[in-house]
């Protein structure tokens, strides 16, 4: 492999075309996915737990906290979301800590499709913050394909920079891999910007908690990357098991191996359940020791989170002032 190209760059489709034989038929795809090395659950979890014991102090902690803030997809995905709520979230994303303008802004504001336009407007131009939209009938995804595509196209048309789609877990679990593959491809097509301009980046959500086994998560990672995912994402945050250190580590290994094999770099987004700075730093340590510098940026790693931001801000204040902060000293919206 001559060089590495980003999954969302112009050269990626050409690289993927090189693996066309793997995705030529349902049988070929199955053979390929089932030929991937197995995952020993206990060993994987032990490695993730081991990395979790790293002690990140002082300068390293300051770096990690700012990096983590810059990687957040600040999220609100509630039935009760309103324009006001989304605007407030956008304001928070732009200036997370009003008392310290040196605080980095978040990576994206993540909302339902009908809130994309609101977020787009609230962020304005030049904020450097993306608008991410869940789509494809998030979180269950249990609608017909045309509806999913319309959902996606609508969000893109409203100005979404990033689309977080959900896969059809039912199809995956019943072994209809090609169906899942084709659906991701179709959604990727729907991410094209009407009237030109760069396409929305596609994050593919597996819902690891429903895939149930680590072998499935590894297979699903490869399937999604072969289908053109720009990011692979652990979960919707709407089921019992969301991102865990172990299932995220496994996906980090998958993007690492995919880049080695295909030359295409794909991002990773754990989502759901990451609430504390301590947790976030553990994930960054995993990225650091599994993937290294190349993934240590918001272009390649994101946290899907809402309450995490305030904890990071409190830790950040503690580092700069030397005293422990409290929830009254960070903004709540």
């Amino acid at each position, binding site marked *: 492999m001559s060089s590495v190209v980003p999954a969302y760059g112009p050269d990626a489709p050409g690289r993927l075309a090189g693996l066309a034989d793997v995705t030529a038929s349902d049988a070929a795809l199955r053979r390929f996915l089932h030929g991937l090395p*197995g*995952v020993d659950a206990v060993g*994987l979890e032990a490695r993730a737990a081991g990395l979790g*014991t790293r002690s*990140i*102090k002082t300068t390293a902690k300051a*770096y990690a906290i700012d990096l983590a803030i810059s990687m957040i997809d600040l999220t609100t995905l509630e039935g009760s979301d309103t324009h006001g709520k989304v605007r407030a979230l956008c304001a928070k994303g732009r200036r997370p800590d009003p008392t310290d303008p040196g605080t980095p802004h978040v990576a994206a504001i993540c909302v339902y499709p009908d809130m994309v336009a609101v977020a787009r407007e609230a962020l304005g131009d030049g904020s450097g913050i993306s608008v991410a939209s869940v789509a494809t009938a998030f979180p269950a995804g249990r609608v017909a394909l045309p509806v999913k595509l319309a959902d996606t196209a609508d969000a893109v048309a409203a100005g979404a920079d990033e689309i977080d789609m959900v896969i059809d877990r039912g199809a995956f679990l019943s072994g209809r891999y090609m169906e899942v593959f084709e659906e991701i491809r179709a959604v990727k097509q729907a991410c094209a910007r009407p009237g030109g301009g760069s396409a929305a980046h596609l994050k593919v959500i597996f819902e690891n908690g429903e895939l149930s086994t680590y072998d499935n998560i590894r297979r699903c990672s490869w399937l999604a990357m072969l289908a053109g995912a720009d990011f692979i994402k652990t979960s919707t945050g709407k089921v019992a098991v969301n991102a865990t250190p172990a299932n995220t580590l496994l996906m980090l290994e998958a993007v690492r191996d995919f880049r080695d094999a295909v030359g295409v770099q794909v991002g990773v987004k754990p989502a759901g359940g990451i609430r504390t700075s301590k947790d976030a730093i553990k994930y960054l340590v995993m990225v650091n020791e599994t993937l*290294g*510098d190349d993934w240590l940026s918001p272009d390649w790693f994101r946290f899907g989170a809402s309450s995490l931001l305030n904890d990071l801000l409190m830790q950040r204040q503690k580092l700069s002032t030397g005293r422990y902060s409290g929830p009254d000293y960070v903004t709540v919206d």
Partner: protein
Amino acid sequence: MANEKFAYAPAPESRAVVDLAPSYGLFIDGEFAEAADGTVFKTVSPSSEEVLAEVARAGEADVDRAVKAARKAFQSWGALPGAERGKYLFRIARILQERSRELAVLESLDNGKPIRETRDVDLPLVAAHFFYYAGWADKLSYAGYGPDPRPLGVAGQVIPWNFPLLMLAWKIAPALAAGNTVVLKPAETTPLSALFFADVCRQAGLPRGVVNILTGYGDAGAALVAHPDVDKVAFTGSTGVGRAIARSVAGTRKKVTLELGGKAANIVFDDAPIDQAVEGIVNGIFFNQGHVCCAGSRLLVQESVQEEVLDALKRRMSTLRVGDPLDKNTDIGAINSAEQLARITSLAEAGEAEGAERWAPACELPSSGYWFAPTLFTGVTQAHRIAREEIFGPVLSVLTFRTPAEAVEKANNTPYGLSAGIWTEKGSRILSMANKLRAGVVWANTFNKFDPTSPFGGYKESGYGREGGRHGLEGYLAGAADPTSEHASEKESATNEGV
């Protein structure tokens, strides 16, 4: 990989939890005392060469005094109801848990191993071992060694420097649970944690003379093993010394347990869970700087995945952090002594001289102390010294195989037989390999796992007897059907008359 963005700041564990005295005596009959001839030696921190303390050096007279104290204490300890002995051991287990941070830091200081390991592996296992055997003390008649198993008497125990406190626990816990008293000699490069353990015994109110600690060199160990009033000898260490001990006890009625060297094969098949196998290989050889008798020092990798596994292994080795043992992020600490470093260095040089290809990740080693970078050799054959001799350091020899039969043949082609590893996702292959490997511990899809309930010990020249689990009691009990026991129980009843 060169990680430049996210550089971990130093995260040192505080030394303040350990209160080191300038000098320590021998622990005999419940009291610390100088050696009879007043000799002392210094113990240094292998990561800095700083002198930590001066320690009394036991000689023959001290051995004799300690054995006498243990013999005297045996009269009442051996006669104590098992439930009471058990309660002492439970106390010790709990105090060890309470003092585990202090002991972990001490162990890292004196041994050079990373705090991450002493904190997360050594100390939890030490306490667990005492807790486990505490429960056996009043259940010995259910252990399968006869309806009325008796203790042997005085146990002379000699332990190595690689897991000073853990090896102490493996020796002392079953001995005391079974009703024996002990004289234990820690290694000369790591005497401190055993002396702190003496203080734990004091806090637990253990009767005097039940545990005696003799710091010193090989001569003290030899004198202890040879002492005529020792009924049981337990040794962990090199096969060479193990042979000498086996010779020294020949013709006596001493019961012997030997846990000696190894040259374990860690066998990776092409259908292995590769990422976990790489972790297992790394843990197998770089855990505790490779100062592990059951280390997976020979990697046998199936030729079809050799390249993939080696690439992944090298990538992983590049992330290993070598340095200050007290830094919480250190993966590989210091080599225990200048002597051991010289041995590792010379064997690694022999590997190169014999034509194997040497590789180590770029890593900066501290300027003082004893250090050796994690190293692997490829192109190794069974004929190379680095494939046959125990290096006892962070050096992995990589060999290849084509078929399961070849893997078994190569794995077993060694006088050692302590441990082995198997990596494959195929269940029937695991069981078949496990049956054929001549090793006392077989780790399948894992490596270097230890537990107080799990018997540990070798085949062939890796020694005999088992430590851990129900099996670990056998070496400290005189069973009814065992001819060596008749003598011991006679002696025991004779001593009981004196009570």
